[in-house]
Structure formats: C-alpha cells, structure tokens
C-alpha cells in the first residue's frame, strides 16, 4: 500500500469519460427539433387503452383515490354500454405518489410506453403543472378533474373542474347578495389560496366589500389559534376559507373554540365537501361551501350516479365535486371521440367546441377555445346530516374564463 507505484490516473479517466460523453452529445439545437414522434396509440384492436394517473400513496392519496374510484365506475359503465366507438376501455393505472416529479415521469410512461389514448387524473396544481410540458411535447391528452386557480389553458389538457370564474367569483356574488360588508381571508400557504385571494381582493374592491384580514398557514400545519384570534378581533361578516386538507380541522376547531360560529361569523369554503364535513369533530351545520356539484343535487342523472357509485363502493360513500368532475371527464372524452369519430388528438381538438354531456351536476359544455367546460355554480349550506342544502345558484352554466379576460376589474399585475 505504501509503496504504491501507480501514478495517479485521474486524467486518464477524465479523458475517457469525456470522450464517451461527447459521442452521446450530438444533440440538435432548438428550432430544428425533430418533430415529436408520431402517436403510438393502437386503435386497431377492439380495446382502447386509457391511463388513470392518481396518487394512491402519499398525502394526496385519500382525495385522489375517490377520483380513481369514479373513473373506474365510469369506465365500467361505458364498457357495459358498448365502449367508445365500439372499443372497450382498457384502463392502465399508475400511482402519482403525491409527487409532481412522479406525475411527470408516469404520464410520460403512459403516453410513450403504454401508448394510451388519453390520461385522466392529477389533483394538485403542482402535479398538473408537472404533466403539462410532457403532455404537450408528446401531443397527448390529459383530463384534469379538480377545481383550480385558473390562469392556464393548454390544447392538450381538458379541465373538467371549475376555474375561478365558476367558483370563486360566484361565491363573491353570493356574499354580496347576503349583504356582506367585511370579509376575512384564511388559506393554506400555497398557490391556489394565494391566487384565489388575489382575485377575491380585486373583486371585493369592485363589490365594495372590505377585506379586514388575510392569514396563511403552511399546508401541514394544524395550529390556527393565533390566526383565528385575529378573526375574532377583526369581527368580519364572513370568512372566506381556501384552506386545503387536514389543516381545515385545526382551523374549524380553533374557530369554534374561540367562540365563533355560523351565527356570528359564517365560513364559506371552497375545499370542504361531503367527505370533509363529518371529519371536523365539530358540528359545522350552517357553514357554506361553493362548488359546482353537491350530492344533494336533484336530478335523475345524479340519482343514477349516486346509486351506481354506492352500489359499487358502499352506501356510506358520499359523492363529491371532484369525483363527479372525474366521472364526467371520461364521458366527455367518449363524446369527444364519437364526435370526431377518431382517437386522434388533433381531430378531437378540432371537434371539441360545443361537445356536451348531461352530467350529474347538470349539462356541461366544452369550450373549444380554452378546453374548460361551462358549469353551473352552486352554494351549499351544511345541514345536520353533513349534506349540503343548495341555497344559491348561478341558475345557468357559466362560460369558463380561466384568464378572467371578461372581467374589467381584473388586473393580473396588481397585487
């Protein structure tokens, strides 16, 4: 060991590896990029592969599993009714593991490896943002079923959840109609609440509603005591809640603990639905939520949807807005393909405008321009059974406007 005679040979190794890598570096510059490989989707057989990409592990698993369930239900129903263009759906399921990078990896696998015709899934904006460049590069299709903060449109993504002008803005209209003068904003410290509140603040100025406070807590933090104390002090007419996930429980508990209630300072939420309401450990009767679908919506389509879902997964399982949006997304895909009479992405996009489906929430229509769908906004009030009584509705479907171009008061560059 001591009498090592070998001269240290780092240089040699470096030269070797450099040479190896150079051989692999014959890349092409931007602009002259080779056209993306032609779609590998196989439409010759009597089945068509569709990708279901939801997190079945990690923090988002509980939410996304419900979406997975309703997608499976829709696939079963469609197959029982003869499939899409006569082809049975063959689902290829993948776990996004609540990690955006995994979503990006898996959608690539689904599109280029499994050659699925379309992918359904994603929940967090982070996962959608991660999938967007991949699905655009591969010219694939993604159906995203969750309400989100808007400000996005891609020709390769169909958004079947609400954008802000179908949930946030109607909620503000509802507050105005209730004569609300002062509003307190409470949200998780991430993109959706921050963006939603930016819109709320600008629209509130327009409506003459005063924002008397704005508080954020990290996603995984449950202690809202200090922030709720500020609500107590500010005495707002209403609290606009954009908190996500389990942090809601901490908020609601702290809120009741310090003597607030639906009578004194009601909350309107955009992420508490049928599943979350009973998990608060508090009687939340009388509080409000803004969605486009409630289990309590009265329509034959909804009754059939609820029955089918509960037959499949158990009578105790509630149905909620994202589940309905996911269910709807698969039927919309079917309608799209059948109208285009093709599984080809470009042909589907050409045929997209005006495609409708009689969904559990009511009739929805695709906007061919921005790939969002026209939806009716609903405000529900929680009753003693943890179901929502619809107390306000936009009456007719609202055209999607993800960039809020139709709203004069909206100034994206203002704070």
């Amino acid at each position: 060991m001591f009498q090592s005679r070998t001269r240290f040979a780092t240089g040699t190794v470096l030269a070797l590896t450099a040479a190896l890598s150079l051989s692999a570096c014959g890349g092409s510059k931007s602009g002259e990029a080779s056209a993306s490989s032609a779609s590998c989707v196989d439409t010759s057989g009597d089945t068509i592969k569709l990708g279901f990409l939801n997190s079945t592990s990690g923090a988002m698993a509980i939410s996304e599993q419900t979406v997975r369930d309703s997608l499976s239900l829709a696939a079963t129903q469609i197959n029982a009714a003869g499939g899409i263009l006569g082809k049975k759906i063959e689902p290829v399921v993948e776990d996004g593991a609540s990690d955006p990078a995994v979503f990006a990896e898996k959608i690539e696998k689904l599109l280029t490896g499994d050659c699925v015709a379309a992918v359904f899934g994603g929940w967090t904006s982070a996962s959608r943002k991660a999938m967007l460049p991949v699905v655009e590069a591969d010219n694939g299709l993604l159906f995203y079923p969750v309400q989100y903060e808007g400000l996005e449109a891609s020709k390769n993504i169909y958004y079947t959840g609400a954008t802000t002008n179908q949930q946030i803005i109607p909620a503000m209209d509802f507050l105005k109609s209730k004569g609300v003068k002062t509003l307190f904003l409470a949200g998780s410290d991430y993109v959706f609440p921050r963006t939603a509140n930016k819109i709320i603040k600008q629209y509130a100025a327009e409506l003459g509603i005063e924002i008397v406070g704005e508080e954020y807590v990290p996603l995984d933090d449950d202690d809202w005591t200090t922030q709720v104390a500020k609500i107590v002090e500010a005495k707002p007419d209403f609290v606009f809640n954009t908190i996500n996930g389990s942090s809601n429980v901490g908020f609601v508990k702290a809120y009741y603990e310090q003597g607030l209630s639906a009578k004194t300072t009601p909350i309107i939420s955009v992420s508490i639905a049928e599943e979350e309401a009973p998990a608060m450990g508090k009687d939340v009767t009388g509080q409000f939520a803004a969605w486009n679908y409630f289990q309590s919506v009265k329509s034959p389509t909804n009754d059939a949807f609820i029955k089918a879902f509960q037959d499949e997964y158990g009578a105790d399982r509630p149905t909620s807005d994202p589940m309905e949006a996911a269910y709807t997304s698969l039927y919309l895909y079917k309608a799209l393909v059948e109208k285009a009479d093709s599984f080809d992405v470009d042909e589907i996009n050409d045929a997209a405008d005006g495609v409708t489906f009689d969904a559990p929430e009511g009739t929805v229509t695709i906007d061919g321009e921005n790939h969002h769908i026209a939806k009716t906004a609903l405000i529900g009030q929680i009753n003693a059974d943890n179901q929502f009584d619809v107390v306000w509705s936009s009456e007719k479907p609202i055209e999607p406007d993800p960039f809020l171009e139709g709203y004069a008061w909206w100034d994206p560059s203002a704070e």
Partner: protein
Amino acid sequence: MDAFTTPLLAGTATGALLLIAALGLALTFGQMGVINMAHGEFLMAGAYTTYLTQQVVTSTDLSILVALPVAFLVAGALGLLLEVAIIQWMYRRPLDTLLVTVGVSLLLQQLAKDVFGAQGDPVHTPGWLDGNIDVLGYHWPFRQMFTIVLAGAALAGLGALLRYTAYGRRIRATVQNRDLAETMGVSTRAVDRVTFFVGSGLAGIGGVAVSLISGTNPNLGTTYIISAFLVVVAGGLGQLRGTVIAAFAVGVVTAFFTDWFSSSMAQVLTFALVVVFLQLRPQGLFTVRARGLA
C-alpha cells in the same frame, strides 16, 4: 393589547404541548443517547387512541379523561415494543438507531393510513373544554389551559417518579454514570425499558392534547416532531429544567413570529434562532472526558 396577550397565551399552550412531546425525547436521549424519530408517531398513536376511546366511551365529557391513561399505556407499550424489538440491539450505535426509527416512523404512518384512512378521523372536544375566557381581548380557549395543566401534571408526575421512587433513583444513577450504576447492581437494561415506556407514554398524552387541536391524521406526528427536537437541542441534556425553558421559549417565540409575520416565516426564524442560540450556548451540549478520549 391582545397583540401581546394572544401570542403569549397561545404560545404558552403550544410550548406546553412541545414540552409533553419533548420530555420523552429528552429522557431517552439523555439516558441512552437514543434519538427516537418515531416519537412523533407515538403522538399520533395517542391521537388515534383518543378517537377510538370516543367510539367506546360515548360520553364526550368523560372520554378525554379515559383517553389520557389509555393513550399513555398504548404509546408506552409501542415504545416498549420498539425498545425490545430493535433499539436494545443497537445502543452502541446512536446514529443508526436514529435511522432505524426513521424506518419505524414511516411504517407506522403508512399503517395508520391503511387502518384509519388518510382522511383523518374526528375527535370531539368535551363540553367542559368547549369555551373560552376573555383575557384582555383574547378569547383564551379552555382547551389551551387544559394543555398547560396537562404539561404541568406530566412534568410533576415525571419529577415525582424520578425523585421519589426506586426506579427514579435508578434512572438518575444510570443517567449520571451507566457503568458505575451497573457495578452497583442496577439493571440498566430494565431501567432503560422503564424510561422508554414512560417517555413514549408521555408522547401518548401529548397525542390526546394534539387530537383536540386537529383531530387525527397519519401525518400528525411529523407536524410537531421537528419543533420538539429543536426543543431538545436547545434545552441541552440531563436536566428537565432546560427542556422546560426551551419548550416554552420555542412555543412563545414561534407564536410571536407567527403574529408578526406568518406561520411559514415563524418556522424559518425559530430554526435560525436555535442555530444562533447554539452559537452562544453550546456548553450545555458539550462535555469531554479528558482522561481517556477513546
């Protein structure tokens, strides 16, 4: 006025919670040099115990009182199991113990997710805790006062155990000089187990208090554990006094930062403060035995 009282009182309650969580950590670390990364999951176990107790004991008013001893036993038993199954084999490898317990922590979280679901289950606050008292404009919830009382009781109980019982004397002897204690006929193995049981059991009690804040969820442990570790680091070793002061300091300071800036910034600033604090007072952390270095 309540710009001062709110963070002070709310922070004290947070500090009390951190204290309950940190006591067990400080105890096992001080005695055995073991950092148990699954300690947060013992908090979680305490919270789920509260939920389950409420399924059995239908009177919400009683259920919390029943849950306290049950949670202590459940979390303590988990700790004991961990000690017997894994930790006792690796006392000479403290860093490895830390990593193994990371694995245990992952397992327990996933297990909770599979058994109880990721959604989290509701825990109902008993009527006698459901209310508040107006302290200079801050509607101080009874629940927070209860947490402080609970921490005081845990501290007093632990102090009494250490001071007045035979086991306590053995624990103190082992902490001060393990080898000597052993030659004096103390079974340090048995003492270690008792310590682990008590330390983990305290986390179970903390879990009951946490469940009153946020119900249950599988990630509940991770929320509090980092702060509890910072408390142990800042508090130094061997003395409960350091842990007590550090817990309340971290709780109150975090509450003030939250009030002034935001929760996110409060986390960042509190961490920075602990690092700065270590610059000023590393003595509590540092001893060298001169006669033999090996």
